[in-house]
Structure formats: C-alpha cells, structure tokens
C-alpha cells in the first residue's frame, strides 16, 4: 500500500479516473442545486416590478399556488431528490467501470 504512487488531493485539480468522474458529477449536481435554488430567487429579483418582489412568477398560479411559491416550496425538494438519484446512478456506473474485482460495491 505504501508503494502506491500518489499526488496531493485537490478538488480543483482532480486525478484522472475515478476521482475525476466524482468531481465532474459533483460539479454538475451542485450547479443544478445552486442554480435552481439561488438562481431562481435572483431571477425574481431581476424581474421584480414592485419593491415587494412582484414579478411574472408571482402573477400566475400553478397547483393552486402562486408559481414562485410552488416552485420554491414544492418543486425544489423534489428537484433535490431527483439530483440525488442522478448522482447515485452516475456513481454506481463509475464504480462498476473502475472496479477490477468481482464484487464491486463491497470495495467502493
């Protein structure tokens, strides 16, 4: 084990291979996470027509709620679940691809 070559761990400069894939999917998921959460609030700020934040999303209703409330309060938690599913599917495949042993998950 101590003979294994190694290089310093750095999220911004990941090693090729498993860690590279892990960092890539993490970045993709985090962009989806931050973009939907904070990007949507920022968008509402840009589009506001009154100081209280009235904007195109507050004017139409969706599932009985103003769209902005539905999107933030109901869609985003679901979106997070979906992001986690995508992340797990990708890591499952990545692990399979990089495993040279017969029972891959026990060594993940």
């Amino acid at each position: 084990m101590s003979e294994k070559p190694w290089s310093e761990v750095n999220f911004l400069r990941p090693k090729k291979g498993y860690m590279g894939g892990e960092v890539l999917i993490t970045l993709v998921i985090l962009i989806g996470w931050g973009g939907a959460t904070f990007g949507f609030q920022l968008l509402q700020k840009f589009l506001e027509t009154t100081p209280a934040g009235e904007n195109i999303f507050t004017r139409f209703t969706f599932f009985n709620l103003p769209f902005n409330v539905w999107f933030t309060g109901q869609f985003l938690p679901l979106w997070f679940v979906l992001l986690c599913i995508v992340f797990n599917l990708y890591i499952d495949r990545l692990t399979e691809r990089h495993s040279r042993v017969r029972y891959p998950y026990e060594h993940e």
Partner: protein
Amino acid sequence: MNMSDLHIKFVPLVITVVVLTSFLLVGLLYKVRESSEYGLGGRSTGRIGSGAAIASNWMSAASFLGMAGFFYLNGYLGLACVIGWTGGYVLLLTLLAGQIRRFGKYTAPDFVGERYDSPMARLISALISIAISVIYCAAQFKGIGILFGWLFGLPYDAAVTLGAVAVISYVVFAGSQGVMKNQKLQYTILIISFVVPLMLLAKKLGYFWILPQFGYGAALAQVSPEFRASFTLPFAGSSLFQWSALCFTLMVGTAGLPHVLSRFYIVPNIRDARWSVVWGLYFIALIYWSAPAYAVFARLLEARSGVAPDPATARGMADMIVLTAATQGGLPLWLVGVLAAGGLSAAFATVSGLLMTGAASCSHDIYAGLLHPAASEYRKMRVAKGCTLLLALVVYLIAVNPPGLIVEITAVAFALAGNTIFPAFLLGIWWGRANRQGIITGMLLGVLVTFAAPLLGGRIPWVATLFPLTSSAFCGAPLVILVTIAVSLMTPAPPERIRRFLATEVHGHLD
C-alpha cells in the same frame, strides 16, 4: 394560548404516554432480538428502512412545530427553511457521504483529530459539537415546553420544567436500559401523526384533502389580497440577501451537523448508504411539503373569524400554530393529541440523541482524550452520565427564557455547524494541503463569526448586516474556508502519512 385552554387534556395525555412508552417497550424487545442477531442494523434493514431511519433521526420539534410557525409568521422567507433543510442533503451526499465513510472515522472530533493530526483541533471540534448539541436541544426543550403546556394546561415556565424532568428521565431510562431506537417505527408514527390530522383539517375546511399539500393553495386564495401578497411575494418580508443567507446557512449546517454526519456509518455498505440518503430526503420532503399547509390553514381560520393578531401576539403563538390550527379547525381532541404525541416523540428522540452524543463527546474526547488518558471504562461511563445531566441543565436554563422562535434557535446551531464543522470536513476531504494550523484558525474564526452579531454588531453595524445570528454561514462559511486555505499555505503541510492516505484510500481506492 388563551385561558380556556388551561386545563389538563386527558385523552391526548394518554395517547402521548402510550406512544412514548411503546417506543421504550419496542426498543427493549428490539434490544433482546438484536443481541441474538448479528451486528447493528443488519442487511435486512434495506435502503428504504435506512432512509426512514435518516428521516426520523432528522425530525425534531423544529420540523414538527417550528417550521409551520416560522412560515405562518414570515410567509415566503419560511420556504428558506424548507429548501435549506432539504437541499443540505444534496451537499452532504455529493461532497461528503462516500468520502467520510472511506475515511472511516465515526464522529466529528474523531475525524478532525485524525485528519489534521492534532489533539487541539480535536478538542476544539469536540467543544463545538457539544455547543451545537446544547443549542439544538434548547430549541427542542422549547417545543417540549409548548406541548406539555397544552397537554397539562400549564403556563410555559412550569411546563418546560415538567417537560425537562420528563425528557431527562426518558433519556436516563433509555440509556441505562440500553434501549435501541426503532427508527422505522418512529418515522411511521411521525408521518402519520403529522399528515392524518392535516388531511382531516383540509377536509373540514372544505379543501382537497387527499393531498392537502396541494389543497392548501386554494385556501391561500381566500384570504385578503393584501395579506396574500405580503405572504407570498418573495421580497415582501425579507430581502434577497436575508432569504439566501438563511437558506444557505441551513444547507451547510445540515451537511455539518455531527449527529447527521455519523449516520453514514450505520448502513453496512456504502452503495446502500448513498441510496438511503435519497429515501431519507424523500421522507423528509413528505413532512416539509405538509408543514406550510398548517400555517396557511391557521391564517385562513384567522381570516374567517375576523380577528387577525397583531405582530407581537402572532410571534408569541407562532411556535404552537400547528396545534392552534388543529384545535380551531375543529379536529376531535384525540386527533390533536395524536399530533402532540408525534411532536413530542420527535423532540424526545432528538434530545436523547443529542444529549447522549454530547455527553459521549465530553467523556470520550475531552475527559479521556485529554485530561485522563488512562481512565477506566467505568470512570468514563460515570463522567458521561454526569455530563448528560450537566448539559441538560444548561439546555434547561436557556430554554426557560427562550431567546427566539424554535426555528431561530435551531438556525443558530446550524450556523455554528456550517461555520466550523462543515469547512473542516470539506477541506479535510477535498484538499490534502489543509493543515492543523489552518483548521484551528478556521474553526475559531467560525465560532467568532457565528456569534459576531450579538458580540460586535452593536459597535460595528456591518458585522450585524453580513453575519446575522440565524444566517451567519452565508458569508461566514466561505470566509472560514478562505482563511483556512490562506493559513494552511503559510504554514507547513500536514504529515505525508495523512496526505498519502487521503490520496490513495479516500480518493484512490479504485485506482
């Protein structure tokens, strides 16, 4: 609470006692069965079961009472809690879950001590973990006080004292008997006791009751347009900064809470651990989709009765709005009792988990780790028991005069976790160069930043603006991360042994 409520409610009390006692009894049976089977949480648990365990470990008085209360008071800002407390799991899953599992350390102090090769860093993170537990528990005690006040018809200070005695007896009994938590059963009780009363409430008020999570929107259309606007417009009650700061703080706090991080070791295999997070998040979301509905129904009932409370009164009653909505909506008393029993079991379970973790940290990390390395197991156990009572006393003293709403108190605990433990794990896992000088400076700065608003905000106004007490991690966590990086780069790299372990085992296990 109005005066007519000041009488003891027998049926709800009996339901509560039955629910809490059944947890203890099932826990004792479970213990007997478990000791004959192999290990903790064997494979039969499965991903859905582990997900339910994650959710029930997570559910507390903040989810059960606090969130609806905060939403009732603040409208759209309240959604920052819904998002913060679910979105945090995305951070946890993508950045930390698999890696801390491969690192193989079970608690925050163990991880920090080992990764940064420093007893001092370990001590600081242990003290921080204990502080997080105490603050989080104080919010639970407030919830327990409110529910006991309703059940026994007592004013808050008497109720919180009675509740404190009850919960400590529960913790001591469960601890001394080695009661195992059956978290699947607990989650089932929680979700039923939260959602069934909500369904009936929606039905009584005349809305779509099969999925009241979608039905409450129609209720919102029936309050006055002025109120609806102030409740749902994004920046009516808070600025973009306030919303984002609260949301982000709760997210990084979720990914830095010691008792949440240690959950990943209980599931036997790492792939199951990852998938159980998805189920856990889904189960948490089920409750969080429902909480705002209670708040909206409470507002609707106020509008129908024609008496809207002034802001101070509303703030005073916000944390019991779930019960108020259920009672005023005309639910049968026993069903309100089910709701109260669910809230109390969430609070009791959270308190027992946090107090035991805090006490173990006192005994294992501080007493045995630093003061008396040669202490016997018996001695450590006695210290842990003493610490449980000591911590409970501190919690009680905070909770007697609660400094804020349940969500606000809880948010301070999350801010502290997000400003200290989260950066320590994030950099510890993803940057081999992070060293002990860096993280010690970073964690101390994180503590300062968390309490900067009350400490310095009076003299330096921009501090209070950038680091509000409940939302300090939005600017705080990035600042701590940058300072940790800068100090690490100015001081020698950590031992090669650790950097190699990180590169070959934590990130290179399949190379």
